[in-house]
């Protein structure tokens, strides 16, 4: 396959070198090159490149810029919390630090354009200058006129400059309401499975054969491809789990060619990895340590989400239970659940047909403090005085973000809360105080 880039305006050797670093991205690089044209020619004022994360947007641009030695400024919009940082970086990489220091302390766009014009009239562009903005979606949160101005920067500064925006979000979500200069859109498609395989197989381990490594990648993709197509993530997972894959080979139990046995060995391990290390429940360091100590079963170590158990005072637990019940039960069922002598309620009437969706689907409902306290007194068996400590416990539950205060209109008079804990959490809590919470939940009542 002749996978090389070719272009009239550039040195062939450099192009060759660049194309070697861009596996599976020759088409996009070629398209980009043809848009850029020859270095001394004018390029389209702004180019918008979109595609999924880790589809090689920045990489392609970086390689091209570096290998072809084009003047460029790469700016990450995450770093530029204020526009002055952005302007400084651009001027710095085009004209050196003198230009950057000639900006006033809080520069406006007008200042930037003025300084840029001054500088470019002293050293006019012999080649197209490129400003590459990564994570361009953050530009939308900046001043309203920054993005439209950047899009027509070429016209404003009258210099051979092109702004390239990189983003994961489509251009439709960027357009300001009075319109702007439309950039040229360029899509970087996702890597197909074959391409992923090809790229991942590049970083094979030197002490094993290439086929061995690519069969490993094949298994890895078999497990993870349906969930994750992010090259970075996959590469990270491949690096983490390779030592486990080679283990039977190094101990001599299995030969390199026995793919099926290797697969049997690694597959449950990878499935476990999806639930732990892929979700960052277990850090990669912990994961590696776990692989070291063989006797402990992987996953025996508790992940992040297993640490949700919180030690609470006795009454706080009941307060939280009461809040949960108040949040997830309709108020009209309270009588049935919490009153000792509630009289007879007809079942058909009680289970209203029109309540189609359960609260566990819709999320917690807000409730008033009174209702919560009423439920609290009903579920606690002993007599509890409404002391200051009870009320301060409520507000400390809010600070722990186990409860959320809904409306801020009044702090003292009739505050409203929502319960912000999950069912599993509240079950664990109620188990510690021997309270069967499921019996009191309306959503689970229908089966009994």
């Amino acid at each position, binding site marked *: *396959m002749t*996978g090389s*880039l*070719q*272009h*009239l*305006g550039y040195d062939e050797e450099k192009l060759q070198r660049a194309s070697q670093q861009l596996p599976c991205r*020759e*088409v996009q690089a070629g*398209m980009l*090159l*043809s848009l850029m*044209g*020859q270095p001394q*020619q*004018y*390029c*389209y004022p702004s180019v918008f490149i979109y595609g*999924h994360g880790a*589809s090689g947007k920045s990489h392609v641009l970086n390689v091209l810029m570096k290998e072809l030695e084009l003047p460029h400024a790469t700016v990450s919009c995450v770093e530029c919390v204020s526009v002055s940082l952005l302007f400084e970086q651009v001027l710095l990489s085009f004209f050196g630090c003198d230009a950057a220091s000639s900006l006033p302390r809080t520069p*406006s*766009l007008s200042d930037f*354009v003025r300084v840029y014009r001054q500088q470019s009239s002293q050293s006019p562009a012999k080649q197209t200058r490129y400003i590459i903005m990564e994570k361009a979606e953050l530009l939308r949160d900046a001043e309203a*006129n920054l993005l*439209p*101005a950047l899009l*027509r920067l070429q*016209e*404003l500064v009258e210099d051979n400059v092109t702004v390239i925006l990189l983003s994961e*979000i*489509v*251009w439709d*979500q960027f357009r300001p309401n*009075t*319109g702007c*200069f439309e950039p*040229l*859109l360029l*899509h970087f498609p*996702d890597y*197909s499975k074959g391409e992923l395989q090809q790229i991942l197989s590049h970083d094979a381990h030197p002490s094993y054969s290439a086929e061995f490594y690519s069969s490993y990648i094949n298994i890895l993709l078999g497990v993870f*491809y*349906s*969930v*994750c*197509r992010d090259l970075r993530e996959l590469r990270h997972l491949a690096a983490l789990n390779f030592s486990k894959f080679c283990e039977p080979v190094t101990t001599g139990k299995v030969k390199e060619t026995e793919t099926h046995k290797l697969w049997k060995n690694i597959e449950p391990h990878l499935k476990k990895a999806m*639930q732990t290390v*892929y979700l960052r429940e277990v850090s990669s360091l912990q994961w590696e340590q776990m692989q070291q100590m063989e006797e402990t079963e992987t996953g025996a170590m508790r992940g992040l989400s297993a640490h949700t158990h919180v030690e609470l005072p006795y009454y706080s637990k009941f307060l939280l239970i009461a809040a949960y019940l108040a949040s997830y039960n309709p108020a009209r069922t309270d009588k049935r659940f919490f009153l000792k002598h509630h009289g007879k309620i007809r079942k058909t009437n009680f289970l209203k047909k029109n*309540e*189609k*969706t*359960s609260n566990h*689907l*819709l*999320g*917690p409902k807000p409730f008033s403090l009174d209702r919560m306290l009423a439920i609290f007194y009903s579920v606690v068996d002993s007599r509890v005085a409404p002391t200051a400590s009870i009320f301060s416990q409520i507000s400390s539950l809010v600070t722990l973000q186990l409860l*959320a205060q809904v409306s801020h209109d009044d702090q003292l008079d009739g505050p409203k809360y*929502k319960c912000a804990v999950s069912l599993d959490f509240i079950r664990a809590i109620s188990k510690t105080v021997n309270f069967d919470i499921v019996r009191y939940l309306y*959503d689970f009542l*229908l089966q009994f």
Partner: protein
Amino acid sequence: MSKRKGKDTHLPIGECITQAQQILRERFCQRKLPDRPEGVEAQHRRLLELLRRTAIHGESNSVLIVGPRGAGKTTLLRCVLRELLEDKDVQKNLLQVHLNGLLQTDDRIALKEITRQLQLENVVGDKGSFAENLAFLLEALKKGDRSSSRPVLFVLDEFDLFAHHKNQTLLYNLFDVSQSAQAPVAVVGLTCRLDVLELLEKRVKSRFSHRQIHLLSSLTFPQYLERVRAQLSLPDHFPDPNFAQEWNADVKTLCEDKSVEEVLQRHFNSSKDFRSLHTLLVRLTGISPLVAVGSTRVIEHPVWNNPFQLPCLCRVSVSKPSIRPADLLDASRLCLADAKANMLHGLSILELCLVIAMKHLHDVYEGEPFNLQMVHNGTPTHLKEEGGGGEKERGFFSCFFCRTRLPRLEFKKFLQRKSNSMYNFEQPVVMKAFEHLQQLELIRPVDGSSAKTQREYQLMRLMLDHSQIMEALQKYPQCPTDVKQWAMSAFA
């Protein structure tokens, strides 16, 4: 490199291509001024006459040029100015101040820019406050009169943004000067908003002359075709006339091609301004064999693989450099591609399943917002778990389906079909996929208060429509049949 010996010199083909490319790029990217503006002769004459009266006779004027984006407002103004400045007197006399609403975001900055462009900085100095600067500038303008002082031309690009300044001080003062017998000024505003006069304050509006020049395109399709041809043709002064002739003939045949005409008609129907045409043509020069050959092209065209059929220099290019209809089709396809469908193509199968589930929810509940919990329970992934699990949750989920109006039959069928399914992901994995969708802004939270509610209960809206999802599903590489069936079932 080029050595021209006479009129009929043959440049090497690579050189020709470079030259042609240079010319076309200047046209499309740099937006070099055309020799004369097309289709706006009347407006051109009117504006020229107006500005000439200011420049020569010292008449104060104000005018607004209104037109949609890409309609050629700046081009018109620049053409007029170029023509105006051909006059030696005018060139010596006229002062120009160019302001842009994007750059001069408030009156203070605008004022500084005016003093700078009028080269009064050294007079004013750095110390002046805004009020002092304004007073000085007005003084300078007031002192002048029609006969003696030099006329000033103010060009306000993005005029509507100036109307958002506080109290519209700048606009008021500029129009005021143009109304009273002071130094002759012409205020030219360029804007794309048709309702721009409604933005002006009453006192500002009353001082404006209400002269408007509208640039609304009245282009017919044959004219559009002609314009495409003209834009692609090489000029007469091209160094290699033979090449230019051949090229222009090629372009002519290209424009007569039926399929090309169809494509252009589609573009014409969506918009007829210069700029969208240019984006198409830039892509064309990008794709066409004029410039570069990517690897796929080499594979596509067997001729190019055979080095003996090509002159050695043109390994890059082709034996006959011309734009083929296929190139234009390619360019148009790239231009008209749906970005969201492109993004859907790159989703993982789990994320696609989530999108389908959301679509179903959207259909059943007639556009009500949804949260992750609903989506998750609607996906096939959980149905399976529920069938096998048989714990407390089982009751909960099945009771959800009893209460919903979802077509139960469909779900049951799907469940049976999926009995040995491979999709049983944990809730956190699904959550991660859901968050990825949110990150791509394919779904959006209904309200911004994200901190208050738990992540799985946050209400969301789907930002895709029916046809986009269906199209993406058709194009999805190796889409499992059962997923496709599941998606179809509810659409029918």
